[in-house]
């Protein structure tokens, strides 16, 4: 299935192609490493000043099975890197600790395994903050400080615990380029990222990238097939995450809900009354209900955002780098207001755009840490339609358009953009039918979009539960697919109730629902 588009700006065809590549990278980075024993702790001649603050993070995680939502996959062990920051806490990547059942921290040249827990996880920016169960264990560690966005061509050093050995490993490289890049971990977010030729390998994830004794990034992803290209999260994104959690809650990066497009065509510029001066990106589409829709109109031209001049290619000059204008939007926290200078109806106009956190596309991206919601009745397993579900149902979603999954992909990724009014809050799918005499003749056996039950249009799992439990007739009637027509099925109401306990016992299901 398709990925959702990048955040505020960016060119669709390029962005989409890129995300596809990066997504593989996550799999490689998050790949479980077989961890060897602890080697002898030989001291280095020239001790690196930061290394005592760099830790290895060993995670045992358990990922749910989205198309059998009461189950979990086997426990996976993986390792990453983290580092101690101000406050005695450990910063790492969110993907290092996603779905963790147990997190252990290994300090530099310390044989002990120290249990830790997640304080905040920002899956949209792939950052997480951990603390030790016994925080005093880090009392003697000098925390690392953050620097500024490094300059292109300057040298950086990474520290971490990549595959290929047990001891801490250091690599050196130059900052290759700085751009807004798709983040593979959320799958549907693009934020500022720095590319370097310092080797960044599986296990490096979450490790500091250092310049002049200061952290200028967190290593986080690579792209299979690219040589000598690793990516790290820059200080602005890290600071945004740390500022966000200061109020004790993580809101995430705001999403204005606007797509800009290049405005390089002379006729288009003339039509809008703009000179051919290379300035301004055109508002092409606005997300229904988003904050931008309230203050912007299609064909408005963004000239400046918070003082940054926007080019006709949709980029701004940010600390010497030409990057997508989205970077300006991403500097602000949810609740803050962005000052925009736009061109509308032949003249300039100042507008204020209040930014909001947005999780309306949660199901389109990759979800973590919250196991899938489901409801089971009469052996029919209902769950939310999500990118995670589609991936499990289609073996990674790369098999092309299969008839039974095509509608699910459309409902999830396209319908909310094309017809927001027809889209449902939480599209529901019948993921499978647990065979039992009560449902043995039920012809639809799974991977089917649930349109109506007993005449009730299903917009979330609670609707399923209500439609089934509050129905008084002898039989339940199901309508799949939609929007109007699709396969019909029915289930005997009393027999389903009578069978519920037996079905849960037979299939080893502890609870008939997770809502």
């Amino acid at each position: 299935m398709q990925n959702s588009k990048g955040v505020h700006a960016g060119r669709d065809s390029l962005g989409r192609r890129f995300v596809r590549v990066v997504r593989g990278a996550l799999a490689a980075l998050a790949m479980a490493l077989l961890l060897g024993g602890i080697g002898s702790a030989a001291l280095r001649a020239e001790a690196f000043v930061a290394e005592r603050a760099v830790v290895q993070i060993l995670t045992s995680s358990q990922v749910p099975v989205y198309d059998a939502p009461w189950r979990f996959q086997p426990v996976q062990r993986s390792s990453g890197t983290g580092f101690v920051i101000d406050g005695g806490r450990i910063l790492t990547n969110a993907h290092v600790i996603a779905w963790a059942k147990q997190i252990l921290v290994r300090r530099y040249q310390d044989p002990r395994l120290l249990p830790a827990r997640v304080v905040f996880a920002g899956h949209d920016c792939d950052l997480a903050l951990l603390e030790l169960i016994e925080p005093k264990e880090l009392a003697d560690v000098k925390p690392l400080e953050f620097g500024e966005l490094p300059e292109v061509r300057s040298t950086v050093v990474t520290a971490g615990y990549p595959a290929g050995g047990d001891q801490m490993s250091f690599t050196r490289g130059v900052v290759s380029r700085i751009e807004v890049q798709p983040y593979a971990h959320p799958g549907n977010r693009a934020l500022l990222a720095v590319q370097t030729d310092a080797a960044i390998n599986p296990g490096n994830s979450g490790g500091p990238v250092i310049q002049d004794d200061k952290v200028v990034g967190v290593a986080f992803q690579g792209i299979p097939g690219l040589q000598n290209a690793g990516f790290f999260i820059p200080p602005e994104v890290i600071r945004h995450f740390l500022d966000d959690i200061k109020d004790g809650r993580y809101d995430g990066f705001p999403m204005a809900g606007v797509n800009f497009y290049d405005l390089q065509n002379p006729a288009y510029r003339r039509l809008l009354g703009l000179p051919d001066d290379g300035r301004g990106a055109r508002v092409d589409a606005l997300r229904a209900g988003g904050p931008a829709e309230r203050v912007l109109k299609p064909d408005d031209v963004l000239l400046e955002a918070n003082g940054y001049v926007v080019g006709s290619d949709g980029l701004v000059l940010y600390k010497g780098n030409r990057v997508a204008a989205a970077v300006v939007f991403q500097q602000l926290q949810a609740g803050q207001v962005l000052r925009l200078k736009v061109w509308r109806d032949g003249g300039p106009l100042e507008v204020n755009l209040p930014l909001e956190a947005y999780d309306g596309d949660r199901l389109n991206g990759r979800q973590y840490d919250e196991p899938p919601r489901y409801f089971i009745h009469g052996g029919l397993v209902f769950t939310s339609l999500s990118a995670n579900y589609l991936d499990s149902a289609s073996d990674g979603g790369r098999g092309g358009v299969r008839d039974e999954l095509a509608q699910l992909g459309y409902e999830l990724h396209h319908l909310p953009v094309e017809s927001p009014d027809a889209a449902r809050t939480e599209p529901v799918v019948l993921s499978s039918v647990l065979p039992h005499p009560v449902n043995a003749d039920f012809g639809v056996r799974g991977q089917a979009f649930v349109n109506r039950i007993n005449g009730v249009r299903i917009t979330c799992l609670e609707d399923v539960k209500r439609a089934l439990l509050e129905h008084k007739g002898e039989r339940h009637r199901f309508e799949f697919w939609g929007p109007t027509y699709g396969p019909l099925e029915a289930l005997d109401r009393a027999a389903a109730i009578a069978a519920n306990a037996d079905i849960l016992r037979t299939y080893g299901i502890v609870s008939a629902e997770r809502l």
Partner: protein
Amino acid sequence: MKNLLSLAGLSSLDRALSFALIALALAVAPAAALAQPMLRTAPDWTRSLVTVEITFNAHDAFQPWNNPTVSTRKHGLVVAPGEVLTTAQYLPTHTLVRLQKGGRGRWYDARVKWWDAQTNLALLTTEAPEFWAGLKPAELMTTVPAGPEFNLVRWREGNLESRRADFSRFIVSEGALGFAPQMIMEVSTDIGGRLGWAEIVERDGRVAGLTTYGTSRLCGAMPASFIQRVLTAYRAGGFAGLGYFDFTWQPGSNPVLVTDLGLSGAPRGAVVNKPGKAKDEAGLQAGDILLEIGGFAIDSEGDYLDPDYGHLQLENLATRAHFSGEKLPMKILRADKEMTLDYVIPEAKFEKESVPREVFYAPPAYVVAGGLIFQPLSQAFLRGWGDDWRKNAPFRLQYYQYAEPPDGRKSLVVLSGVLPDDINLGYQDALMLVVDKVNGQTIASLTDLTAALAAPKDGVHRFEFMKGRGLQRLILDAATLDAATKRVVKHYGIPAATRL
């Protein structure tokens, strides 16, 4: 797809041949046991089975003005004086057809008298009297028995080859070229090589069917009984085209569901879950149970019992004894009551589909305007992504095959590419977008598009695309559009800016 298949077929021909020769050599001993029944009839197929060579235009999805030609060979069967029957595959876009008899020697220029995509049948002829000398029409079976044994006969390297073909089953499926349902006879054989090129399946000197598809061991043949019926209608001037059922149905095998729909007793009948296009009272409704079609009882699997061919899917009743436009009585159960309605069988035509599977009824249409390339959205276009087109073609474009545009427009136009030029600067990434409006006018066809391009406003042409994830709008300068189009056409070597 069909076009691409033929390319693959040709390239693998040599390999297939050598494989088949080895298979022949190995098969000498077991074949001896079968020699007797084959000798008893000793039909001389060299006198009615001929070779057809077809050169045809392949569809270039991304450069529709190109007409690359491909050649292939298959079989033809003399069915009447001056008439060679073959399958319609590869004939719709033919540029040259030739006939050869005896598996070798001279090729005779031929003419296509008639072809029909939905039946997948064609009749050829040649004006050269020498060709017909020594040939005699083959006899077609009127009813094809369900096995057990047939022979598969074909020309290979100038020699006639015949091998046992075991009857497997009768199935109902879409035709190899069209989408009208047909009953197909599946046979298995160890003859090897490429199959599905109108080889004949025969017994005792009478033709049981023409193959329409095949793998190395299994192939499907269009039964002679069906061919006879179509040819008879065609010769009488009364062939109205094949029909199909435009409603969708599901088996009525869930007793709880059919009870809920008002049926009493054991489950029977098929449940309509999406009505067809007929909106009058005679039309079917979702939830109707189909109990009988044309006098045949429908079971809960959606099958009927065919007097000649056993249990077959109900779809076959659309073509078994009827052509399009005819009335077919259906007994249904609706709201607890049995009733009979006369279903008028709609004609199966690609032109009626919103995303036509084939567009070979006319040369591929396109409009190049200011370097933007517009084409009708069709499956033929989507197959331009190659054998893996379902994986590689843009998902959203493919999805129009599953769900028609909600505003009811009958067809769609896609912006399939941009030939770079000054006029379209900045739009080089605007690809694979379905056109909604041009200059305010709704676009369902290239004709709509050219009409809309005649009416620019404010000195520009305004293109709007379907609401979605892609680009929503672009603008082209109106004053310079014609000049730019001429420039683009010349610069990129396109024969004409428009082919409607």
